[in-house]
């Protein structure tokens, strides 16, 4: 049975790197993998989503509503937006960061209250982490994506060394130590 992981966030938060890390981990695991990305316009601060699907043989690269085993949201509002993509019984990993979209900034819409509480009220298993704080602790707010990979590593049955290898391969050398620390803080969260 194929599995699906959906990663959502705001353009610029590093969903591409996150999906590539997961992709690398899965190749090392020796399964078929597809990673679907969105480039271009939506990367300019818009809502972004990437998909990782793996198993014996993956055909469609996209995840549809009700299909994701795990959703990793880098921002609360995006968690709410992509919730319908979660499979019944699926898990949500949410960074508690809040980034106001333009309609909220310009006063034409309200940022909803207590998104995580409302998701939990549906009976969904939610792991909420202040990834921004942990990333800052690791050395850069930009590493929230890797903190969330640390969070994923606990919820997911993958040997630790595969993660370390993926980080070594995907992250520029300059930022390697920082990202390893970010990953560890995510694991411990």
């Amino acid at each position, binding site marked *: 049975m194929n599995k699906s992981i959906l990663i959502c966030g705001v353009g610029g938060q590093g969903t591409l790197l996150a999906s590539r890390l997961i*992709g690398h981990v899965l190749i090392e695991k020796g399964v*078929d993998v597809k990673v679907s990305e969105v480039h*271009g316009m939506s990367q*300019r601060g818009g809502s972004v989503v990437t998909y990782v699907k793996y198993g014996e043989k993956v055909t469609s690269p996209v995840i549809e509503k009700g299909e994701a085993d795990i959703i990793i949201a880098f921002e609360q509002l995006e968690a*709410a937006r992509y919730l*319908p993509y979660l*499979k019944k019984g699926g898990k949500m990993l949410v960074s508690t960061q809040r980034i106001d979209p*333009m309609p909220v900034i*310009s006063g034409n819409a309200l940022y909803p209250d207590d998104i995580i509480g409302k998701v939990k009220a549906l009976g969904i298993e939610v792991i909420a982490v202040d990834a921004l704080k942990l990333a800052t602790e690791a050395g850069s707010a930009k590493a929230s994506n890797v903190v969330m990979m640390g969070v994923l590593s606990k919820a997911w049955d993958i040997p630790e060394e595969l993660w370390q290898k993926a980080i070594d391969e995907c992250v520029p050398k300059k930022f390697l130590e920082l990202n390893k620390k970010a990953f560890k803080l995510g694991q411990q969260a």
Partner: protein
Amino acid sequence: MKLMLGNEAVARGLYEAGVTVASSYPGTPSTEITEFAALYEEINAEWAPNEKVAAEAAIGASIDGSRSFCAMKHVGLNVAADPLYTASYTGVNGGLVFAVADDPGMHSSQNEQDSRHHAIASKVAMVEPSDSAECKEFTKMAYDLSEQFDTPVIIRLSTRVSHSQSLVEENERADYIKKPYVKNIAKYVMMPAGAKPRHVFVEERTKKLIAYGDNCPFNKVIDNKSDIGVISSGAAFQYAAEALGDSVNYLKIGLVTPLPEKLIRDFAASVKTLYVIEELDDIIETHCKKMGLSVIGKELFSFCGELSQAIIAEKILKKTAETYTLDINVPVRPPVMCAGCPHRGVFSILNKLKLRVSGDIGCYTLGASAPLSAVDTTVCMGASVSGLHGMNLSNPENAKKTVAVIGDSTFMHSGITGLVNICYNRTNSTVIVLDNSITGMTGHQQNPATGITLKGDVTAAVNIEALCKAVGIRRVRVCDPYNLSDVETAVKEEIAAEEPSVIIARRPCALLKNVKHNPAFTITDCRGCKACLRLGCPAIFNREKTVEIDKSQCVGCGICKDVCKFNCISEGKV
């Protein structure tokens, strides 16, 4: 095995096929093909000013005997259509392959055209891979096909094929020996005497390609012993395979133009019910119906947007997935101009002066979004300049309240010809070149005005001021878009001028690595007038009665300071 984007796999295919020349213009979702091709030392890869120039460079290299390549997005093929339609007649010497990436769902495009129509109309062969492994294999096979049938070949991609990663096996580069160039006026000089017999050749070639399609490595039948058949291609095949699994038989079409006849007829005869599942237009379906076959297609599936396994499951299996629903109103999150974007200052002035703005393609198209809402029109690359001329021809009074905005790369692409028309046919038009010194929206590609090539070499840079003067613009001025009063003065004076003018608003994209940022600005004693919120800056947040600047996003451009009437915003400390 390596995990590769479809675009990276096409580039790998170019390398393995022995390609030596690649000339393209960037366009989502095709851009990375040529960027990856440039990483191979053996491939002379470049960014051309536009797709027509790129295609012609590839045609020239092919005539000289090299295997050559050109990539573009779907609308880029419209620009390159002129050379393509006649290269169909001349045919090739070294293999000639174009890649065109369609964007069903319009993730980053102004229309949703189906490029298969161009292959049909120009009568060249078109192949369509479904995943990265096929991207590589089809690219290599496309070169053999091109040389075997003396035709340009187009690889049709789509967002989900170009921008999905799947596993690819890498092989060695072929020892391609460049073909000798032999002068052949009848084949390569397309005046009527030569073109008439070449058109006859093209029609014969199409017949041969149709027969080739019956038994070729691009097309395959997957027999699951079902009495239901599905004909599909590209990304749509993957969706069908996921939704329907091995419960149906498939005819997966890889050579999508021209379509085979006997293969389709035999497949149709082997099943009781036949579906055609294709994204965008009904090209395979129409072909089947023309052959008298009964198929189910667009009565179930839309002409608009992407397909998916969910749509196919719903339409054919009547199955829908169970989902969670949250009872809250989730505000949309549209893309925005980045914090510190140099375009913002110009749009805030255009908005303030309530001008009509003839817009163009690039990051600055976002100037149409709220709250700036400054852009009035966006059609295609270059249309801001030529369209402004038309508006001012329609009513010369428009010239006092209308401007065009165009980026540096788009100006190089096809803005300059519109400016020539403004000078030649004399409207008092004002064109603003938003020169951020890079091709922004597609992810920072160099262009002829930046002075750096795709391979990273330093080269001659087009001098935009001198170019504008050379075509006949006397009023050319440069301003800094971070300096709002400077921009406002320039715009007011130039729209008032009784002759054509160009304003170059020059400042590099804030996301470029070599751009130094100022410390974040701060707000104290905010009066809550919210004038700064009207800039649409993602670093400025509304907090009930006041506003706040997000220090992690602010790059210290300072234009919010200029719009604050109460002097509450100040420069940050180093």
